[in-house]
């Protein structure tokens, strides 16, 4: 009887202990999104593996949207930089976390004609 009582209490505390260890829910959907450009641009961005990737993107109209999405974890560095070809146009660069805008910058008729957006996925 005594042993049974002890086992029950032990079980209770094991459950309590395990419950205290919260599940690791630190993953976030990261989306790089570039829009509002009509001249084409080159983009460099930090990918899922942490490497810098570069790409040249042609667009047919300002309605074209370029996106790149991956799953990141808290603390990961997110980085996207776009250099548009025609300084007479503009560009809008965003980083979205779980569908919500996390960082955003835009440029219009700028002779520097590039926009960089970056940060790290915040800890909750």
């Amino acid at each position, binding site marked *: 009887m005594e042993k049974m009582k*002890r086992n029950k*209490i*032990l079980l209770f*505390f*094991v459950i*309590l*202990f395990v419950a*205290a*260890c919260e599940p690791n829910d630190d993953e976030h959907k990261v989306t790089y999104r570039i829009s509002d450009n009509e001249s084409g641009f080159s983009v*460099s961005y*930090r990918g899922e593996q942490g490497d*810098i990737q570069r790409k040249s993107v042609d667009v047919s109209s300002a309605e074209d949207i370029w996106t790149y999405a991956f799953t990141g974890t808290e*603390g990961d*560095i997110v*980085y996207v*930089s776009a250099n548009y070809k025609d300084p007479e146009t503009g560009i809008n660069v965003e980083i979205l976390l779980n569908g919500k805008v996390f960082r955003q910058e835009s440029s219009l008729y700028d002779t520097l004609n*590039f926009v*960089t957006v*970056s*940060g*790290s996925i*915040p*800890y909750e």
Partner: protein
Amino acid sequence: MKQFAYHTILAFLIFATGSLSAQNTAVVTGTILDKMPDAPIEDVEIKIKSTPYATISDRNGNFEITNIPPGEYEIIFSHIGYEKLKMGVLLATGDLRRMDVVMEPKTKVLKEVEIHSKRFEEAPYSIEHISKPVIRQSTRKDIGDFLREVPNLSGVRKGGSGVDPVVRGFKFKQVAVVVDGATKIEGGCPNRMDPAVSHVSIMDVENMEIHKGPFALRYGPNFGGLINLQTTRPVSYSEYQMHITAIKGFESNGNGNTEHLSINGGNDRVYYMLSGNHRKFKDYTAGNGQRVNAGFTKYNYKVQLGTEPFIDHRLLVSYDRSYGRNMDFPALPMDERSDDTKIYQFEYDIDNISEKFRRITIRLYNSDVHHIMDNKQRPFSDTVIAVSDIRANNMGGRLEAAFDLFNNDLFLGMDFEQIEKNGERVKNFILQPNLPVKTEMLWNNAEITNTGFYTLWESKRKDYTLNISGRVDMNSANSGKLLLENMMGKPVYENDDTDSRHFNYSLSAGILYTFSKNLDIGFSIGRATRSPDMTERFIVLLPIGYDNYDYLGNPQLDPEINNEADLKIGYRTENLGLLQAGGFFSYVQDFITGREVPPAVVKPQSKDVVGVKEFYNADHVYLYGYEFGWYSPDWSGLNISVTGAVTYGVNPESIKYIVENGEVVGQQTLKNDPLSEIPPFESNIKVKYSMFNRKLIPVAGVRLVASQNKVSQAFYEQETPGFVLADFRLAYEFSEELIIHAGVKNIFDKAYYEHLNRRIIGSNAPLYEPGISFFINMTVNL
């Protein structure tokens, strides 16, 4: 009443049948030890129940009862300060029965008053003992935080956890920290986010010993004080038993949750302990309503296995794996992102080797810390994200032989320690094209090795205790090139002259004299030598000090030397209780501190600092202070204690650098400038009342801390206002299996901060302590 097993039998019993004699009677002999290692218990009454046979243990814990007729008996071991122990024994004609017994100090709730009074006589200098029941009542976040409750102990605090202990104004590596008498841990962070005590869970600690002053030389080099953390060990049982302890705690301010679970058991040959702890706190609210970033998560598990392969031989191996996650440090440029620590320990003891050769003790350990920190939650991370990744390893051991030399104790031993540190900081320039990355070495394969030989001779007589101790240390250090480059790859600072060797010696002597049954006076003198630590030798341009400078290590520093004298007086009467007072004076030669390096030599690298300081040996400084305490007798359940302590530190000649518009424009020599980060006068008053046969014990406490106006001008140290805090807690023992502690801290929701709390980084804003907080702790022992 049946004694609860966890609190009573923490003993092992070795029955070894000796050679048969021709006599018609039997003999029982043995040694009685405190549960703490190396501590024989004197004056234990050993009585064979319902017979006239009895004796008292001698100063070495030895006893012998002769001429016992054959038969079955119950032997009772009793002592005022320990749990009573009963053991059955069957004696045959001619038996020579050896019974080695370990007794545990009484562990009923809230006996800190008795522990203080009982322990006063044991050493010529001041030692604070804190036992498990006192530790487990606490809702403190870690060991450093807890130690701030002890008179003349305080802590440098920079964040939600990782408080760095300060003993009588001595801090950082001036205070030695050992675990289980031997194990040492080297934290990874240059800014001491993770001091040694932060790598041990407070719930795994059975007992803390704080040796004030440089007198304890047995546990490795000691400079200004030693903290020995004795962790809970598995113990043997005469028959197989298993015991469980579970603790659940909650604290309202900061939504703090703590859990502890331990299972220990075994028999007289093999015994074990498995334990785990989890601790999670979020940001708290200060008394002024300010939200303070102080969240952290810590958890660990520990496995221990012991055996007694032969009579008088004990072997214990243990593995402790601990983790820290997302620990906020608002007073530092970074937060600790993760800490993964592994501690391996091996212990082997052989007792009673011969009449004069009492014991051999072997301790081996390896502690490995993997520390990652970053600035990702700081405003500066909008342009540069910096991540530091550091490995720190400490490997060592201790070998000691204990002898009985003409009824005196002689300890001879050697210890060894090798610290290795390696780590880098990666800076990601996240607003620059193509995300450039710069890697800087924080520790470039830095290594310190210390080998020491020591002796302690201790003579205990009725009227006095005399201690003489000494040690010599061979200390050597080296590192890869100390190098910091700018973005163009050109060196900002480089130094490859990193080798150094020191031969250090330390001595101490003390006497505790009992003038009467009421009065004891202890006096100790000591000289202790400390070689510089990793930071003082090898740091490269990091803002690690109290002042706003980048610091530069100096591999060619000399050791600093503490020459100290301590006096303590204890006066005790039945009506008055115990009055104790003590004072110390410390003259530190070659004091290690910082002095400015002109910008033409090296420029600062960190944001918002005013210059660069390099570690050097100042000629001398001195520290002095006093402590007092009054512990009332038990007045029908009412106990009162009043303690107080203060330390002063003075640098006879220091340099203040004049700063204008963020730049050093001149300097001024100061005479008798106070040392920085010295805690002010503090007094604690506790009143407790035991009711219902000690089942219900309310305790009220008041803590008075004076303002600190003696601040260092040279370090631009800021004054701190005084404060008064009130706490209340209640301990209720529902049964021997269930104890609840509940209470409220900072009852009047006072907005306050300790003098040793660092300021919020980049500002002069103080790091406030929590406001009012309710807590409850439930302990189940099975």
